[in-house]
């Protein structure tokens, strides 16, 4: 697995943002379940990426979505938050003998449990930021929390599907 930021990541950036704008914008479940598929770009970046660079990437991807959504700054703020938390969550989830150089965010390599915890933690932070920045007030906090929960689950399922469909399973799983 490549451990550096490369062409594949740039392709993912364009692809996920395009999917977000053209397709996922129209896909809302029960008026509460939103799918922010562009977050996959940040989640699937190499593990040992420079932290400062990661923050700028987070801003870039959030800002591109904001331009199309007319929500200036909201997705950028949430994505920067996610980019900031990502190294911390990765630290928290370090396997007993540390990350190998060949490790990447891949459900086959790292295992289902590792992937689910990693994804859901970061998605929860991101979605909470998006929905609370959107309403600004805590007036309808109940409805907003429902939106956060349903959307986190929805986006999480989409992330798992993306992993199972498009990420190779050449390596044996870790114990």
């Amino acid at each position: 697995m490549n451990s550096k930021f490369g062409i594949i990541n740039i392709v993912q950036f364009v692809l996920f943002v395009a999917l977000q704008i053209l397709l996922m914008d129209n896909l809302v479940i029960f008026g509460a379940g939103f799918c922010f598929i562009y977050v996959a770009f940040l989640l699937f970046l190499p593990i040992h990426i420079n932290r400062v660079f990661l923050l700028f990437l987070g801003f870039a991807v959030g800002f591109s979505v904001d331009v199309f959504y007319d929500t200036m700054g909201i997705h950028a703020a949430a994505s920067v938050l996610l980019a900031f938390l990502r190294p911390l969550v990765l630290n928290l989830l370090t396997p007993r003998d540390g990350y190998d150089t060949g490790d990447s965010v891949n459900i086959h390599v790292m295992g289902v449990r590792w992937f689910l915890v990693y994804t859901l933690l970061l998605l929860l932070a991101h979605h909470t930021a998006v929905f609370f920045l959107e309403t600004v007030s805590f007036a309808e906090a109940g409805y907003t929390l429902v939106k956060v929960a349903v959307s986190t689950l929805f986006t999480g399922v989409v992330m798992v599907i993306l992993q199972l469909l498009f990420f190779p399973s050449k390596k044996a799983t870790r114990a």
Partner: protein
Amino acid sequence: MRNLFAFIYRFRAFLVFVLLEALCVYLIVRYNTYQGAAFFNSANKYVGRVLEYQSSVSDYFRLASINNTLARENAVLREEVMRHKATAQIDSTGQLDTAIYASTDTTHTLPYILHAGRVINNSVRRTNNYLTLSVGSADGVQPGMGVMSSKGVVGRVKTVSEHYATVTSLLHSQMLLSAKIKRDNTFGTIKWTGGNYRMAQLEYIPLHVKPVKGDTVMTSGFNTVFPDGVMVGTISSVARESDKSFYTIRVKLSVDFAQLSYVYVVENTHQDERTELEQNAGILTNEQ
């Protein structure tokens, strides 16, 4: 000094994080308060082109319903033209001496001009919804103008570029619209409370009037954005809460925002004059 640099270098990630978040908050605040020509939004030339391409694909699937609405609107307009023809034949005041009778100059009676535009981007399920139209300053659209469809009020232009315009939808948490109940001309404020995109709330209707389910709600004409009597919706429920001095009225909006395809931007040719007059008199309210 070296220690300071070492400190900054050690916490560089956190500092960059704080800086970027501050920038985001600045963007959020600025975009929510600032009306005019912003560059980074869906009225941007390149963004508009992508959205136009997207809607040119998705519009194919709605051609039948778009045609239906246009045909129905044509029928209504035709009926109105016939009615006007009939009154023009009976009415002969236009031929009388203008010194005694007011001349019937249409620019004096109707200061509104409509610009038709296609909706190329639309959302109904977010807390703050916007539309993007494929008309811009080249077609005479300016920020602050009202937007309506054949069914009723849609929103208000937020920013324009040369060929595109973004519109703050009526389905926006900060959008207020001056409206009145048609039957007795009581006026209040229409506000969308989120959730269902077919329902809004009519606020500030005092308790001494008797609004009834099914009453028509239309624009009041007290602002310079919309003409008097543009349809907003019908009252679907009236509730009286003991701790409030106003009714809680739910209004079913006449416009189905999920089905919007063509809209009209309303240009009021007397807007500047009236705004200036009201500003000079010190009575201009912030209500839209």
